[in-house]
């Protein structure tokens, strides 16, 4: 998976920000599809998850929510659930918004080779998807 960069050079697609007890990830993206893609890659990187090129299966996932913040949290929760119960990373092939608060993605489930750290949950703490000059921005706090 390759993160989607915004036009503005220097605005990273995601980076870790200071949080005393847990992890916080700032995500920048031009639109909601890229926000979900960048957040997924950022979360996997925080956990230092490694996979090979092996493929368990191709699948389609669909997430529906009541607003964009809930969509972002539910999307990341879906990836975490698959990581814990099936021990797979969902490698995103294609991602498309169905409507403002629903997304559909084509993914390849790749078995995990190693993982250094755990995320217990994705929180709503202070979560707001804000409009920026070049797109949108959010900061997600993970309970670790």
């Amino acid at each position: 998976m390759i993160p989607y960069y915004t036009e503005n050079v220097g605005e990273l697609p995601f980076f870790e920000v200071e949080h005393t007890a847990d992890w916080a990830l700032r995500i920048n993206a031009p639109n909601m599809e890229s926000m979900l893609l960048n957040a997924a890659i950022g979360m996997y990187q925080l956990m230092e998850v490694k996979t090979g090129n092996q493929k368990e299966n191709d699948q389609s996932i669909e997430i529906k929510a009541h607003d964009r913040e809930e969509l972002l949290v539910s999307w990341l929760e879906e990836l975490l659930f698959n990581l814990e119960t099936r021990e797979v990373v969902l490698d995103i092939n294609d991602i498309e918004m169905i409507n403002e608060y629903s997304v559909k993605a084509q993914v390849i489930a790749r078995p995990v080779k190693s993982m250094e750290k755990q995320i217990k949950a994705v929180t709503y703490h202070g979560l707001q998807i804000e409009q920026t000059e070049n797109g949108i921005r959010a900061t997600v706090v993970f309970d670790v």
Partner: protein
Amino acid sequence: MIRKQDIKRISDVKWEIPKSYRDDMRVPVQIFADERLLEAALGDKSLTQAVNASTLPGLVSHIIVMPDVHQGYGFPIGGVAATKLPDGVISPGGIGYDINCGVRLLSSLIPLDAAEPFLDDLATSLYANCPSGVGVKGSVRLSLKQLEAVCRIGSEWALKNGYARAEDLPSTEEGGKVPGADPSAVSERAMARGRPQLGTLGAGNHFIEIDVVEEIYHPEGARAMGLLEGHLALQIHCGSRGFGHQVCSDYVRELQGAVRRYGIQLPDRELVCAPLSSPEGKRYLAAMTCAANYAFANRQVLAHHARRAFEQVLAGKTRDFDLHQVYDIAHNMGKIEEHVVDGQKIKVCVHRKGATRAFGPGFPGLPEKYRAMGQPVLVPGSMGTASWVLLGTEESMTQSFGSSCHGAGRVMSRKRAKKSIRGDALRSKLQAQGIRIRARSMPGLAEEAPHAYKDVDAVVDVVVKAGIAKKVAKLRPLVVIKG
């Protein structure tokens, strides 16, 4: 950000943010801290989070902030909030994702000098017997029916299945079985996560630690707990694993709608809640109770594995190799309790997030051996520093809803901690201090470096000076098993 001048000094160890600080506060915030710990709390968003928590409907008295407070999500870690029944709210974010994360302490009659030659073997055996690390599955694989039984009866399930001794259960908060659990309130996803994980430690700040009892401060209390100076003790710190994480995630999402339906205004979506009398509030409480019971059973199975590890290494080598349960306490929990507020005894839901129940002498629910002196309060340190065993007091009942601190409390972010030291260097440093480390993840170990935490001795001094706990014993780490 809250400034020091916004805070009123009540005593050397007690401070208050008055209700007038922000229009939406329903109760003041009281902080237990000395000057230095207060400065540390002002260094992150923990006090802002406590002020946010003070806006919840149905709160009584104060929000209480413990000296080990640090920034969390929604509520601060180290916060206590009590809401009045029937219409006060219950907030999953005020309890946390790791429902009934807690600590279990076991004592022994094994003198350090007899065990010293075998500490490396004990470390290796504990590491092998107690599954730890990210996404690890345990040796107990539960069917759905068995998991439902764990939800309902917690530690009693462990007893029925050979993972506990009868005497372990009374020495567990709530006897290891909180009433009111309803597995039908738990999602299929939570069940799927819970089935393979019973008897596992997990990762993050969870640990198993062999300590030596270094100093006794309260001989009568130590005697009742079986703690002998110069002898080994064992701590287990973990919670309800993926099962509890999923229960909380499910209800934080579900209650987003409830706050709209009940017209509750909140400064942070992570504080979502529902009235305790509402169908949503009742369902969450029933599901949370399932996770609480799962956590009691989880620590019980781990204690069983630890006993086996001690037997494997020490049988025939030391006169005694047994581990006796001192107590097991929760520090992320919502409990329905009776407390006196404004001279009246009322029923409240006490949210303790990173805070330990610390009931004083004579309170119902305490085991016979502790009833006259108050309950043991277990305050683990930070891998390289001391841990403390305390006793709850009568004053904790009047000052802090029968609660005390739960640990050292972080002061440095994980990001900065792992930049400050490499995991392997930290392991060598601790080993040079005589602390044997077994850890699955070196980056994970670095994030948990002792210097990322506050001074646990200073934290304990505050709760003792405030009168909400008494010192019983100080423990020094010898072996640390991390996920």
